[in-house]
């Protein structure tokens, strides 16, 4: 049952072969057994989960089930869910009980899904290893000495360890794709604006996008069908017709043109990751695709540009945490300014403070043009590279991450080393394009390798088709960590 697809689970539930309560208990038992080691979940609330499961069973009994009715999912702890503690991985929100539902949460509630719990993450989604969480690092289910990636590391570990049927993540610079790659699962970051950000705690508003993480592309399509759609409460939510993202899954790949950016296969790419990605490309050729050599010359600038723009937006977004209306307040202070300064100093962790400081600096008087404006101009050059590339190809492929999962503590105290692990994912966020990662083999150390698939704007259905056809021909996506 823990290896069943969402479609299979849905059929079993509709046929009354299993109830949602039974399925939810199965996962809660697995979480109780495995989470103490993995630390994939920050908050569980079996009372709410089981109440939702009972409601789903009642709905199914009336024959009113929808695509996800009764299916137990996990939610990244960045989404406000009414009545649930919502921490964003931070001490700042350690005791914050969300008073309302994020749009994504309401969509899943309306679809009848069960919420199993809130998954661990890097603090305020700032990190690539899940080590910045106030609630402790998450272990990679494939090797407990390794990181799961970040920032959606708890979700990736929970999906890989079968501690939920599927789950959500968010991606600002690679936070869905990189952990999906490092934990051997599938993850999709949609085109910016496809999924509402309402109730999703903001990091960098012009880059943040929520998406599904699951064990197959087919599952991702069903989840995206529920998550996507216009929401007037998010001013950047796009008014578009509702799509069925599963509509093209069965299409053959004959004639598909795959662009391979030279820059993604250059120095810095680990040999074993490169080999697995090349093997995946060879498989695509067998499926009828052709490859095109392309160039994204400005993509090398994506890390510097990102580390100006994302911290600038974060420093503004995180100014709301002042210890007055919600969140952490320092126990002792002398006056109002001292209360702000101590509450923020004690409530935020080191990486969050670093990014707030970078952002404050680049936005400050005298530096705005040299940093912020220059970064925004280069952002346009990076986006234009993709526009030109898509004249010659239908999708772009390459590695998701330059290496497989590194060990906990390995990147040490130098934040720059950590930042470089997002070299292949960040440009996609800057351009606002959809990107995904699917498992395509294992590295020299036996850890999973992810293949990144980047689509043109609003091309999610085609990307899912491209991923699904590969998953019909290979079985990397159905491998499970030992002992799972």
């Amino acid at each position, binding site marked *: 049952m823990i290896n069943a697809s969402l479609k299979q689970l849905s059929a079993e539930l509709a046929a009354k072969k299993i109830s949602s309560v039974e399925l939810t208990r199965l996962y809660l038992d697995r979480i109780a057994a495995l989470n103490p080691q993995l630390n994939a979940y920050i908050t569980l609330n079996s009372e709410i989960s089981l109440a939702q499961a009972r409601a789903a069973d009642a709905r199914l009994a009336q024959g009113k089930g929808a695509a996800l009715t009764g299916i137990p999912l996990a939610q990244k702890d960045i989404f406000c869910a009414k009545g649930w503690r919502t921490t964003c991985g931070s001490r700042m929100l350690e005791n914050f009980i969300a*008073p309302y539902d994020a749009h994504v949460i309401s969509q899943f509630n309306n679809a009848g899904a069960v919420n199993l719990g809130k998954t661990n993450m890097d603090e305020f989604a700032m990190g690539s290893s899940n080590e910045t969480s106030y609630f402790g690092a998450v272990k990679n289910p494939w090797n407990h000495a390794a990181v799961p990636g970040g920032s959606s590391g708890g979700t990736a570990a929970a999906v890989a360890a079968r501690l939920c049927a599927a789950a959500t993540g968010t991606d600002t610079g690679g936070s869905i794709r990189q952990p999906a790659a490092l934990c051997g699962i599938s993850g999709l970051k949609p085109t910016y604006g496809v999924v509402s950000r309402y109730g999703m705690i903001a990091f960098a508003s012009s880059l943040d996008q929520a998406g599904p993480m699951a064990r197959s592309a087919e599952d991702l399509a069903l989840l995206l069908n529920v998550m996507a759609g216009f929401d*007037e409460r998010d001013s950047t939510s796009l008014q578009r017709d509702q799509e069925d993202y599963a509509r093209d899954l069965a299409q053959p790949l004959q004639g598909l043109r795959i662009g391979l950016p030279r820059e993604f296969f250059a120095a810095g790419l680990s040999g074993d990751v490169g080999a697995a990605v090349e093997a995946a490309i060879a498989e695509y050729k067998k499926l009828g695709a052709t490859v095109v050599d392309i160039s994204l010359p400005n993509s090398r600038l994506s890390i510097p540009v990102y580390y100006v723009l994302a911290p600038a937006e974060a420093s503004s977004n995180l100014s709301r945490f002042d210890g007055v209306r919600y969140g952490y307040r320092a126990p002792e202070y002398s006056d109002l300014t001292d*209360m702000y300064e101590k509450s923020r100093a004690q409530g935020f962790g080191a990486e969050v403070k670093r990014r707030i400081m970078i952002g*404050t600096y680049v936005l400050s008087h005298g530096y705005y043009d040299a940093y912020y404006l220059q970064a925004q*101009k280069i952002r346009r050059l990076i986006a234009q590279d993709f526009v030109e590339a898509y004249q010659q190809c239908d999708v772009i492929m390459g590695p998701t991450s330059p290496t497989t999962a590194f060990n906990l503590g390995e990147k040490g105290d130098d934040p720059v080393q950590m930042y470089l692990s997002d070299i292949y994912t960040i440009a996609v966020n800057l351009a606002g394009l959809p990107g995904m990662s699917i498992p395509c083999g294992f590295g020299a150390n036996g850890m999973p390798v992810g293949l990144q698939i980047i689509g043109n704007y609003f091309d999610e259905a085609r990307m899912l088709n491209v991923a699904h056809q590969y998953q019909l021909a290979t079985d990397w996506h159905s491998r499970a960590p030992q002992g799972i």
Partner: protein
Amino acid sequence: MSLSTDDVKKVARLARLAMTEQEMHSAHAQLQNIFDLIAEMQAVDTRGIEPMSHAQELSQRLREDVVSEADQRELFQSIAPQVERGLYLVPQVIE
């Protein structure tokens, strides 16, 4: 560019982050590394390039000026650090 410890102090104050001398010292070294990484941008010729502030070229939507939120004062205040008689409490700012 090189960042001085005074710059770090000034930024910490602007960002309302209390810092000890030791934290200031380690933040200085790490921020310097990050700014060295960012410096790569400076050499790029961006004359005539329009800044890109957003992934989609959007204009702000307008809506009717009608009430869309229900009053949830009690619920919202139940998660505040300190409230009294429906008011948020902060240290005294006016003598």
